[in-house]
């Protein structure tokens, strides 16, 4: 009984922010520059962040400086390096676009500020009930240490000028690739998109998908993944370059689809094909589609490191990102095209109207065609699959 109280007292002492009201946070944030560490490989996301900076500057006097990362782990490494040097305040990272393994790693090492999500006024639009998509990140409980900002869902992309009917299951994909050798590949498994592809296959092929919600262990891993490796052993020789080398990430594979070097690509964003056509990065005939039985989906979050120099500013930005107007702007396919993270049931009439007025495109699948959203397996599966894959196929 005593321990929780002690912990709470210590937490309160360590985190003076908890005592502040939102107004005080907004006041403290004024004039701050938030260094938002975000993967910088997508020009539209970068543009969206620049737009958000203009908005929060006008509304709150806070500016955002995007630190463009090639890999989110760079920011984690930086915080680790700062902790190594004993820099426990005034850190260089104020906010990180984060997910899954990186979140788990930072949370476990106590590198995150929080919990702060409940303090954000716009958190009232979220469904934060236990087990909801916004309260679990790759099955790791969020517990208020990161705020959602965009929804992602696995889709495949193909060029309808070259492929008439794309394969809609992993079994069909193997058949298709065997019939069209060298015309399909997936991003490197060290990249999260490549790992997601294998996870999607795992959910379809594993004997008991519910086991994936628990941690992967030495005991259950082999049985759960045996069908996956059998399938992959058959698929790999049919891949582009015989499965000896892989595109670095989904962006590079999208460029290969554009060049015609492969016929199918994949994305973690249902609107990516429509967006790429809009930008001139894919032919007009590109289409996105989901697999039978649904595809993996997850929410992207922003987290604040424990030593961030501008915590208040970061909270203001996190709150701004949850604003229904911001979420509607982000869902516009001419802007980001990423689906809103808010609970539609909690939105008012006016807020819903903004979403209904958004433009559409033939490359954008309807919500119906997208099918159900499958929950991410526990992150340990991704780690163990990536390791097992590297061991099996990296010589």
């Amino acid at each position, binding site marked *: 009984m005593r321990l929780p109280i002690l912990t709470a007292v210590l937490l309160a002492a360590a985190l003076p922010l908890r005592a502040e009201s939102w107004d005080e946070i907004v006041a403290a944030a004024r004039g701050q520059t938030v*260094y938002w*560490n975000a993967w*910088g*490989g*997508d*020009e539209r996301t*970068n543009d969206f962040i*620049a737009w958000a900076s203009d908005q929060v500057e006008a509304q709150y006097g806070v500016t955002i*400086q995007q*630190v*463009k*990362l*090639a*890999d*989110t*782990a*760079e920011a*984690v*490494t*930086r915080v*680790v*390096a*700062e902790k*190594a*040097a*004993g*820099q426990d305040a005034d850190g*260089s*990272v104020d906010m990180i676009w984060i997910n899954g*393994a*990186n979140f788990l*790693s930072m949370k476990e090492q106590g590198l995150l500020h929080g919990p702060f999500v409940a303090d954000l006024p716009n958190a009232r639009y979220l469904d934060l009930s236990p087990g909801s998509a916004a309260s679990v990140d790759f099955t790791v409980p969020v517990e208020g240490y990161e705020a959602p900002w965009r929804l992602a869902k696995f889709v495949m992309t193909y060029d309808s000028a*070259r492929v008439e009917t794309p394969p809609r299951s992993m079994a069909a994909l193997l058949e298709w690739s065997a019939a069209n050798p*060298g015309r399909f590949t997936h991003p*490197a498994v060290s990249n999260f998109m490549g790992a997601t592809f294998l996870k999607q296959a795992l959910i379809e092929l594993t004997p008991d998908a519910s086991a994936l919600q628990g941690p992967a262990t030495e005991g259950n891993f082999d049985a759960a993944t045996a069908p996956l490796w059998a399938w992959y052993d058959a698929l790999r020789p049919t891949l*582009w*370059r015989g499965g*000896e*080398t*892989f595109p*670095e*990430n989904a*962006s*590079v594979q*999208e*460029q*290969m689809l*554009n*060049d*015609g*070097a492969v016929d199918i690509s994949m994305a973690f964003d249902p609107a990516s094909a429509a967006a*790429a056509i809009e930008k*001139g*990065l894919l*032919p007009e005939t590109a289409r996105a589609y989901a697999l039978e039985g649904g595809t993996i989906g997850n929410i992207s979050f922003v987290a604040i490191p424990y030593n961030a120099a501008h915590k208040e500013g970061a909270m203001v930005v996190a709150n701004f990102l949850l604003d229904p107007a911001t979420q509607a702007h982000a869902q516009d396919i001419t802007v980001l095209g990423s689906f809103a993270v808010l609970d539609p049931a909690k939105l008012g009439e006016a807020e819903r109207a903004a979403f209904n007025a958004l433009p559409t495109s033939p490359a954008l699948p309807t919500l119906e065609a997208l099918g159900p959203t499958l929950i991410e397996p526990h992150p340990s599966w991704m*780690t163990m699959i990536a390791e097992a894959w*590297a*061991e099996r196929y*990296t*010589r």
Partner: protein
Amino acid sequence: MTRAGGRWLRAAVLAVVALGLVLPIAAGLWGTLAAAFGHLPAIGANGPSLAPWRQLVDLPGALTSLRLTLWTGFASTALSLVLALAAAAWAHGRFGPRAIGRAIAPFLAVPHAALAIGLAFVIAPSGWIARGLSPWATGWDVPPDLAIVHDPAGLALILGLVIKEVPFFLLVILGALAQVPAAAQMRAGRALGYGPAQVWAFVITPQVYAQIRLPVYVVLSFALSVVDLGIILGPSNPPVLAVAMTRWFLAPDSGLILPASAAAVAQAVIALGAIALWRGTETLVSLAGRAILRRGRRGRTWSGAAWGGAGIVGALLLLGLLSLAALTLWSLTWRWSFPNVWPESLSLHTWARPGAGWGLAALNTLVIGFVTTALALTLAVAWLEGEERGGLARARWAEGLIYLPLIVPQVAFLYGLQVVFVRLGLAGGIGAVIWGQALFVFPYVMIALSDPWRALDPRLLRAAAALGAGPMRRLFAVRLPVLLRPLLTAAAIGFAVSVAQYLPTLFLGAGRVPTLTTEAVTLSSSSDRRVTGTYATLQSALPFLVYAAAFLIPAWVFRHRRALSGETG
């Protein structure tokens, strides 16, 4: 008085170099070394232990990475050297050194990463060459499934390195040739019945090589540890050791920092071991050369080699030019599908939006480049002036000091240095980046400036002294103005080196200081060649403009001074 003043000046310069250059490298190496032996309290590792090394050896593909590193490093260096020597043999006597210098200047100015990004597009199965030949000659409606870029043997990486290193070797060979009485020896050799290529190979090359040994080691160390080229052109599964190590440093699992540090230490050992091995091979080659000479055979053997080498170098430079042209064309493109030779539609959309990022990156690049170069140039002038006034010859250890940052692989000390900088509260700012880059800019400026400085006709200074000019006046009113051209050339080289820095900018800037190079390398793994093309075009244009300025300013300033508008006055 002046002699003592010179000693004092040199001591001050040495102190700056020791504190600013040697100390950070030593501290960085120490940090990396500690982590390699399992000591990094931040992630709960308290060494010493050998576990990181066992972990490193057990990482999938680690041995293949090592093999690839050695193969690409040695092959690219040896190939570049042989090609440059052959091309120099061919060009010598045909063109003056200044004409050659002007022809290779663009390739010296262009950063590795920009050239590699362009090259990757030109040679890829979906690239420009394939587009030029398809479908009429090849029958390809879609790009063929060929392993060209990111090929498992690292050939594309070797090609990229060779295109960039051959011009550098040509430059240092030209410099060395000025010290060799090549024309007289050629006449003597020919009179004895040897063919020109034989004289070149057996008489002139050994004298040239003795002078360019250090630059060769620098190139070897660089090729063994290059990261940005490895990412853009090299094999990916597994990559070369330096790329694999960078990935481990940046992996979500922070425990990988330990084996990554072990790999960084291994990288330093590999570089030093490779240099020792190269040194040993030099002896063998010279023994073999002497054995061949002793047989005394005359004739025109080897002369085909010079033509062949020059032809290959010409083709490589053409490929380089094509790469640069491809970058610019992509930056102006809207859509360009396979197999069209030219874009279907053009657009200025990326150039029209500097706010999207390239504006800030270009500004950072310019500011960092100019400040770093100014610092390095000031320090180099102070060093040389100190030597001069103190009447001191350059000691071997001082030479070693200058080359230290170029021979120890960057990856070996940058992570440790980042921790040091964070501890000092210096990380993440533009100042840290400037300091980090100066470590690499200073040596090149020093190398570029030393010879012209010493070659200055001492009578000019004696005359000035006789006319009553003090040491400061002699420096600012005589020496520096007369040396304007080499000073600006050294500055241009320094600027180009600064623009090209990738790892120091990434690590010491804590990713917060975007430059054209960091952004271009990041973008090279994205889907938009048009944006990458914009960054890479700017990245090559800035150093090129500075080179052009270094050429034009003295020509204009000295337009009425014929003797001064020459190479060194």
